[in-house]
Every structure is written in C-alpha cells, then in structure tokens.
C-alpha cells in the first residue's frame, strides 16, 4: 500500500502535529489571559496565547518529525539508534535525516524557497515605490512587506551558506563521515523551516510595522502580528546558535589524519570563523526577544521608558547581536570566493595565512563596532570616535581578503565559467559595498547617509551583492557534485549577466537616491526622486526576473535534461571532487590522509590531476 508509507515520522505528520500543537497552545494561553496581564486593556489581542501556540506548535512539529524518538526510547530502556535514515532513497529528504549531505540539500531547497518569498516581497515594495505617492498598498501592508522582506532575508540568509554548503562540504573537506552532532544538524534545519512558517503567519494577525530591527517601544506597541516576528527571530537565533556550535565542534574535533589547521581549505576557515560568531551572537538576540516577549505579555517594561525601561537598551542589545550578524552574512561568502578562485585560475590560493587572518580578524573586530548603528541616536556621544576607529579598522582584514583574491587572479590561467563570473562580481559588488560603508562609518558624513536609502543600498551591496552572488556561485560550482547532474552553462551565464547588470542598476542609483535625501521604509518620497525611483523599480523587476532564469535552469537541467556531470567537471584538485558525484552515503570507504597542500596546483611535473587522496588505515570506526 502506497498510503501506508505516508504514516510515520515524516514531514506530513510533523505539519499535522504542528497545527494541533498550535491550537493546544492557544487554548492553554487563554487560561493564563486575564486583566492583570492584558495591561494594554484596550484590545482584543491575546499575545500570551499566540506565543504559547507558536512554541507548542514548533514542539509538535519536531515530535512529528521524530526528534523525540531517541530520548523517549532511551528513557523506556529500549535500544535506540542515534542515526536516522542514513540510506539511499527519496523519502529521507522529507523527514529527520542525520546524513549531512541530505541536510545540506534540504537546506538548499528550504532556504531557497523562503528567499524566493523574501524576494517577491521586495518586488512588491518596489512596485509601491514607482510613484512618490502611495498607490498600491496601504500603510500597514507596505510596512509589513518591508518587515517581512527584511526579516525573512536576514533570518534565512544567515544560514544561507552554512546551511547548504558548509553542512554538505565541511565534513568531506576535513575528511569526516559526518558532522559532530548529526541530530542537532537536522534540528537546525527543521527549526528554521518551522520559524519560516511562523513568520508567514504574521499576515494573518495584522502584519507588523517594525521592520527587521523591531525597535522598542514601537515593538511593545505594535499589534499581534509582531509576535510572529519575535517568535521567528528567537527560533532562528536558536537554529543559528546550534548550527554554529555544531560547525565549530566538527572542525575542531573531526579532522582526518594530516588535516592540520594550516591545511584546512579556506572554505572551511570561512565557515569556521562564521560559526564562532553564530555560536556567540544569537544568545544575545534570543534573550532580547525574550525580554520583548515579557514586555508585551507581562508588562515587564525592559524597553518602555514610561515604566522604567529604556529604548536605548533594546537598540544596544539588538545591534550587539546585529553587527556580528552582518558579518555572519559576509564571511561565508568570502570562504566560497577564495575557494572557487584557485580552481578557475588553476593556481594555489595566494596568501593563505593572510586570508585566514583576514577572516578571523573580521570575526574578532565585528564585536567592537555595534554602536555605529547608533551614531545619530545620541547614545554615548563621547564613544563615537572609538566606534569610528573600530569600524574603519574592519577594512584592514577585509583588505586582506581582497589582496588574496587579487593575488590569486595574478598570472593565473583564468577560465570564465559561471561560478568564476559570480566570484568576480563578488569582488566588484563588495568593493562598492565596502566603499559606501566608509561614508557610514564617518560620523559627520553619516549625518546624511544614516537611515537613508544610502545605508540600505550599502548593505544590499554587501549582503545581496556579495553573499547572494557567492551563494549562486556556490550553487553553480557544487550542485554538480551534490546531484551528479550538470546545470546548463549557457543559461547560467545568462542568469549571471542579467543579475549582475540589473543588480547594479538597482542599487547603484539607490546610493545616489539616499544621498539626495530619501529615508528608508517610507511609503512616500519627494517628487524630484520619482524618475530615479522608477528606474530602480524597473531594474529591480529585471533583477527578480533573473531569478526566474535560474529557476528555469534548475528545473530544466535537474528534472528534464539530466546530463551527468562526471566526478570532476571543473578539474578541481580539492578533495570533494575526487569523490564520486553524488557523494556516497558514508563519503569515504576509508578515512583519507591529507598532504601538506590544500591547493596542489602548479606542482612541477604534475599538471595532471593527482590520483584520489592516499588512504591511511582506518582509525575511526564511526
């Protein structure tokens, strides 16, 4: 019976239990609700029920997936397996699976879907901004779109590279068969999916007007829709934190014989430095959101200055998390960039140690700069020179990344494949992003640019222009390895050129529009900016359209054409390309031993690709 196969611990059960859990939680919440808690008193809003509903819903979802099986079986004294579904077959993609490669592909599809939704929101925002006056959405819907776009992208893209690529590749690159905590690895993915679904329910509860930053006291005052934002970000924070923990533990403890720190591929360094930030930054976010949750339900007043709190406290805490967060978005892309460049220049990475210190330097400095988001807020004005200095200091390690990329291009044999094009675009976009950042870091200059479209365009250059470009570079580069199937290169290049040109034609003018005095998140703007804004909107639609080229390519190549990619279509010398495509369930027959050089290009007399890595007697019997 086919129907019987739907019964069990899988996505279907999880969704059903998730919905049931939500309603059970909602009912529980109504028992708590009383006049003493509903301090605002003037509404029919029931935040207590909603919060409890969200969390019981997530709990039901996880139980449905089978996360409770292992602990329950152990408690009952029955034999239990830590591993789940480490086999072949399609069913493993629709449930709890502890194979790091399956989780990687799950992440790719799951995050991809939410990024697509976030992108659609951006299209709707740009549709409104075609004219200076409000014409498409009402004020609340517009702000909800802005908030959903920002929150969805910030929440999902933080794991946008660590989720799919690092989960898939890091164990292979360090010669391990799995991540350090395979069940936690699966948990991070499913938490993220549950969070994404929660954020979408904001629409059902009236949307939220706070943007992705959720400044207090606006967030205390906002209606019930903002609870979805709070629950979403708290759960995403948990997922990020666990993902970071898992990645740090894996890189520290799971390296194969010979894989010393100085031999780690730079991609692994990129993910490792990010993972440290991911482990340390989100706890601040989670506790901040917990305080907001208490403010909204129990009138604790952490952030409400009329009852003893401070709006500055929220801003400080949010950006103390928020600034490492933006480097969580930047660093993994640098890892991809520096990993792909050697393959298509057929050269070793130039300045390996410099690149590593660049990555770690950025990770360290990212903790010291958060108050540059508050230059105009009046907070602690005598510290502004310090934050100006620390912010500008970040351009030093960032400069390391640039010089290493340039050095790798130097005297290489450059092949302009689609992943390489995305990497070159990364360099261009991040250059613009970094230079525009200098205006924001300089206090007198920041007076104009702060909170304007300039700062918005700046971080789109660094996040979309860098992270999303390296994300696509990574997809075109590694998808043949993950699936064993080639993507159409012609369509890939078409995608690249449309995306690159449309991206710059969207966000380049936005830098100027910001300089000319257009504030962020405003549904109206001054009439003299209409021409520029219409241009930007049309470009943005092309930018959105370029994603359709990608989707078409993805479906066409993977579902209909299915041209085998072979084990090593790019003639790379990295270890993942010496394995069969797709990589078999337990990665290696035997744990490999690594030689001294992660980038063995250009060795005298060895122009050919070396044989598969030498194998040592198996030490680990994982």
């Amino acid at each position: 019976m086919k129907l019987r196969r739907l019964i069990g611990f899988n996505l279907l059960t999880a969704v059903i239990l998730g919905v049931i859990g939500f309603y059970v939680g909602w009912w529980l919440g109504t028992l708590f609700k009383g006049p003493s808690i509903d301090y605002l008193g003037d509404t029919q809003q029931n935040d207590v029920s909603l919060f409890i509903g969200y969390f019981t819903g997530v709990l039901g979802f996880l139980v449905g997936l089978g996360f409770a099986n292992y602990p329950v079986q152990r408690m009952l004294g029955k034999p239990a397996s830590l591993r789940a579904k480490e086999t072949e077959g399609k069913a493993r993609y629709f449930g709890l699976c502890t194979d790091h490669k399956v989780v990687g592909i799950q992440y790719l599809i799951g995050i991809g879907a939410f990024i697509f939704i976030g992108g659609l929101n951006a299209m709707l925002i740009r549709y409104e901004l075609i004219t200076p006056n409000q014409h498409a959405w009402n004020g609340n819907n517009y702000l909800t779109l802005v908030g959903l776009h920002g929150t969805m992208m910030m929440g999902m893209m933080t794991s946008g590279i660590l989720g799919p690529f690092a989960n898939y590749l890091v164990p292979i690159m360090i010669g391990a068969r799995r991540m350090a905590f395979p069940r936690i690895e699966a948990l991070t993915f499913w938490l993220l999916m549950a969070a994404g679904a929660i954020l979408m329910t904001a629409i059902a509860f009236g949307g939220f007007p706070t943007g992705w930053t959720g400044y207090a006291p606006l967030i205390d005052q906002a209606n019930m829709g903002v609870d979805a934002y709070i629950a979403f970000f708290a759960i995403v924070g948990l997922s990020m934190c666990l993902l970071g923990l898992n990645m740090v533990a894996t890189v520290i403890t799971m390296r194969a014989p010979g894989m010393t720190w100085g031999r780690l591929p730079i991609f692994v360094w990129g993910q490792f430095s990010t993972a440290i930030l991911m482990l340390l930054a989100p706890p601040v976010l989670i506790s901040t959101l917990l305080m907001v949750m208490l403010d909204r339900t129990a009138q604790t007043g952490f952030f409400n200055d009329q009852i003893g709190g401070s709006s500055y406290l929220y801003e400080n805490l949010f950006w103390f998390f928020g600034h490492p967060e933006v480097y969580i978005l930047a660093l993994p892309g640098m890892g991809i960039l520096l990993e792909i460049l050697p393959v298509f220049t057929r050269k070793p990475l130039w300045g390996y140690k410099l690149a590593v210190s660049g990555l770690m330097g950025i990770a360290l400095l990212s903790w010291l700069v958060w108050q540059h988001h508050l230059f105009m807020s009046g907070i602690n004005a005598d510290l502004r020179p310090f934050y100006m200095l620390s912010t500008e200091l970040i351009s030093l390690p960032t400069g390391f990344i640039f010089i290493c990329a340039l050095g790798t291009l130097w005297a290489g044999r450059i092949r302009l494949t689609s992943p390489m094009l995305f990497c070159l675009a990364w360099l261009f976009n991040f250059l613009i992003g970094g230079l525009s950042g200098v205006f924001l870091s300089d206090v007198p200059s920041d007076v104009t640019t702060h909170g304007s479209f300039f700062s918005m365009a700046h971080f789109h250059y660094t996040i979309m222009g860098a992270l999303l470009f390296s994300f696509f570079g990574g997809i075109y580069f590694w998808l043949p390895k993950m699936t064993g199937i080639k993507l159409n290169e012609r369509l890939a290049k078409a995608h690249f050129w449309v995306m690159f040109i449309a991206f710059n034609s969207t966000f380049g003018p936005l830098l100027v529009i910001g300089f000319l005095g257009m504030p962020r998140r405003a549904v109206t703007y001054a009439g003299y900016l209409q021409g520029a804004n219409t241009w930007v909107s049309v470009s943005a639609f092309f930018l959105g359209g370029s994603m359709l080229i990608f989707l078409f390519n993805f479906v066409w190549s993977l579902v209909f054409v299915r041209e085998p990619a072979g084990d090593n279509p790019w003639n790379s010398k990295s270890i993942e390309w010496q394995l069969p495509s797709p990589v078999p369930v337990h990665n290696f027959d035997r744990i490999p031993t690594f030689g001294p050089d992660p980038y063995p290009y250009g060795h005298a007399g060895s122009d050919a690709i070396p044989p598969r890595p030498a194998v040592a007697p198996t030490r680990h019997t994982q």
Partner: protein
Amino acid sequence: MSSSAAAGNRRTHALRIAALTVIATAIALPLVIFVLGPNMPPGKDTTAGVSQVFDNTVLLVVMTPFTMFILIFILYTVLAFRVRPGDDDQRDGAPIRGHMPSQIAWLATTTAAVLFLAIFGSAELLASNGSGGGEGPKPIAKPSGSAFQVQVIGQQWEFTYRYPSYGGVETAQLVLPVGQEIEFHVTSLDAVHSFWAYELGVKADANPGVDNVAFVKVKKQGTFQIRCAELCGLWHGYMFDTGRVVSQSQFATWIAGQQKTFAGSQQYLPKYSLTYTPDPQDRAG
C-alpha cells in the same frame, strides 16, 4: 615558455597595471575634487552642511586610488590571463603562494589610509562644526558662543517645535532665524523617531525620555525638508514637513504671531522641559 621569460612577462604586466592605476587616479582625482566633491550632499547652506561636504570629498579622495587599483587589477588580469579558446585549459597557472613585499606594502597602505580616516573623522567630529548629528544630552562637540534653543518633539506621526526663549510656545512649523547658531533639543513622546533636516545637515534620533542635542548655523534664507528617518509605525512615510529659514526681523514677527495664536492653548501644555513623560500609550498600528 621558460620560467624567466614568464617572470619577465609578469613584470611587464605589473608595470602596466601600476601605470594604468596612476593614470586613472590622476584623471579621477581632479574630477572628484572639483566636480563631484562640491556637489556632494547635503549642500553648503549651513555650517554642518559645509563640513559634511568637505568630509565627503576627503573620503572620496582617499578611496579613489584604491578603487582604481582594484578595478584595473581585476579587469587587466581577467583580460591578460584568461584562457583563450583553443588553449589547453588543463594547464596550471604559476604556483605563486604569496609575495611578502606586496603583502607588506598593501598592509602599510591600507593601515595608513584607515588611520588617516579615523583621525581625520574624529578631528572633524570634535571640531565645533562637526556637530549636526545628535549627540545626546551632553554634547562634546559644541560651537562657541551662545545658541538659540529650539526643541523638536517627535510623536506619532508629526514633529512639533517649542521655543523655550519665547515662553515655550509650541508650533507645528519649524522656522529658524538666519545667521544664528541653533541648538536643537530632540525628544520623543512615544516611539523612536529621527529628526532629519536634509539641507541643514542635521539628523538626531528622537528617543522617549532622552534629550538629544544637535547644532547648526544656517547661512542662507530659504526652505528645507524635514523627514522622519527612523521607522516609527503606520504613518512613518507621511511624517515629513518643510521648514523655513527667515531673517531675524521676520522671525521676530512670526514668533510673536505664534505666541498670540497659541496663547489660549498654552495653559494646557506641560511646562517646557527637556523630556516629557506622557501616559503609557495604547496599542496602535
């Protein structure tokens, strides 16, 4: 190709890149200083504006050579070293793993630029005219001499203004006397707003319970736009206004008129103070 010939070739390439960078910078710098710079925002009608235009120009000047070098390097290497159709695309490039002199040179140049930017920015900030940004209740960068105080109150979703030297009269319009040092005191009654007077070169967040001070001296009569630059809820997009800068005598007439108009309602206002504590607010969109 023998390796020494290849090295010689590479030297030629390096020299070409250096030459192109110098030429491009030499062309770009005058354009930046004389064409782009003076047109940088927010315009030169106020003291804060002048200092910001100067700052923006200096930043552009520092960035120009780096930008030129990186762009030219990428373009040149991609064109010069790319594998052409028919070439053997399996052959490896030169196994260069680093080059200490260039690494040190890069580190030295970028460090110098960064330190210059930080020192220059701090000096500008602490100089009395780098104070258009909100500095909180105890400003460290102050213009010398006495200043004319104007309070800006942000509330959902408009700005109102009080003039303490005229009995704390509250008006819905911002009118400023020309040629006078102005001391803005920005505060909020509810959410966080941001008072952004674009042409003045002033931006200061309006936080509830906080007095945020910014200074400016306007040199020219005219109008300027005011927008809220911090998301403050449903009608954030409509929180804008136009301010006017008028002569001293026009200002005196205007403020006298305002005092007369609002004399009746003045008694219902709270006494002028740097911050206000309204009742806890109800929920709104």
